[in-house]
């Protein structure tokens, strides 16, 4: 069953970005602390996307999911060039899973440099996820609304990321 064409699925990152861009005065450091919350969205989104678009069920997250995502990407290589947007989308999902794995393995103490890298990685990869999902959706014929929302979200997220850059 393909993914439903419901833009609600992208509400967490787009809502986050819109709040950042609309607020007149924000505390970037405080807002950046909320970024790890978006990894929960990635987890749900990845599970749904992989299951409904690619028929791949993920069980362990993030380690096993990352392995399955990369396996799927390599399998898609054997198909025609039309799978390119899907493979590009899967690389960024794999990156986001890797960010979560690394964060689990990082030093338990709050290291400011590691925290900053972690937040930067989330900003970069969520932006890419929205952009690449918009490209993937545009290449399919069943996700017009979600694709449009992802494109809008990518633009909003880019503005929010610029505001949050320390």
């Amino acid at each position, binding site marked *: 069953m393909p993914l439903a064409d419901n833009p609600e699925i992208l509400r967490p990152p787009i809502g986050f970005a819109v709040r950042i861009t609309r607020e007149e005065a924000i505390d970037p450091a405080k807002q950046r602390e909320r970024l790890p919350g978006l990894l929960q969205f990635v987890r749900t989104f990845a599970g749904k996307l992989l299951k409904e678009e690619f028929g791949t069920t993920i069980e362990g997250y993030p380690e096993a999911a990352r392995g399955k995502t990369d396996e799927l*990407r390599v399998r898609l*290589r054997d198909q025609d060039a039309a799978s*390119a947007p899907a*493979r*590009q989308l*899967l*690389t*960024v999902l794999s990156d986001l899973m890797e960010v979560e794995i690394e964060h689990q393995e990082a*030093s338990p103490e709050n290291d400011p*440099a590691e925290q900053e890298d972690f937040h930067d990685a989330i900003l970069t990869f969520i932006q*890419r996820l929205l952009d690449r999902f918009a490209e993937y959706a545009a290449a399919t014929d069943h996700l017009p609304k979600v694709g449009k929302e992802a494109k809008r979200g990518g633009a909003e997220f880019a503005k929010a990321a610029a505001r949050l850059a320390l």
Partner: protein
Amino acid sequence: MTDPDETRRAELVALVHADYDATRSMIDGVVRTSIALRGLGVTLTLALLGYAVAHSSFALGLLALASTWLFLYLDAFHGWLYDEARRRARSVEHVLRLRYQQLERGDEDPDARRDLDRALAAHRFGQYLTLPRFRWRLLLRARPRAVYVLVYGSLTGLAIAAAAYGALT
């Protein structure tokens, strides 16, 4: 024809590899020294403690305390060096991972080459050139913290007890 950008990139990655080897050597050396110091420190301090208790000596108890703190300082200094090298290793591995991804993913990741170029540009070459100047407060970053608390905390407690026993008997 060879892409000149790719040739330059490959050469830079080779230099990052050299940096990684230097970092690994530093970690190996620091860990070896740290373990040797800890073993020596515990042996010496326990010997002093045993002597202090056997002879009810306040002075030897104090000496055991001083020995504990001296070895704590030396061990923590190496722990700080280890932490610096560990951070460095992570940052170098990050660059190498981006190279791996660029090669493995090819066109599947349109941002891979740019990410690698950015990381190569931001990379600060040289394990020792990038080592910060030592300051006392940097000892707080020494790792593994639990070992210091357990080993040197116990030795400090025992040394205080031995000194008190020596003073009272």
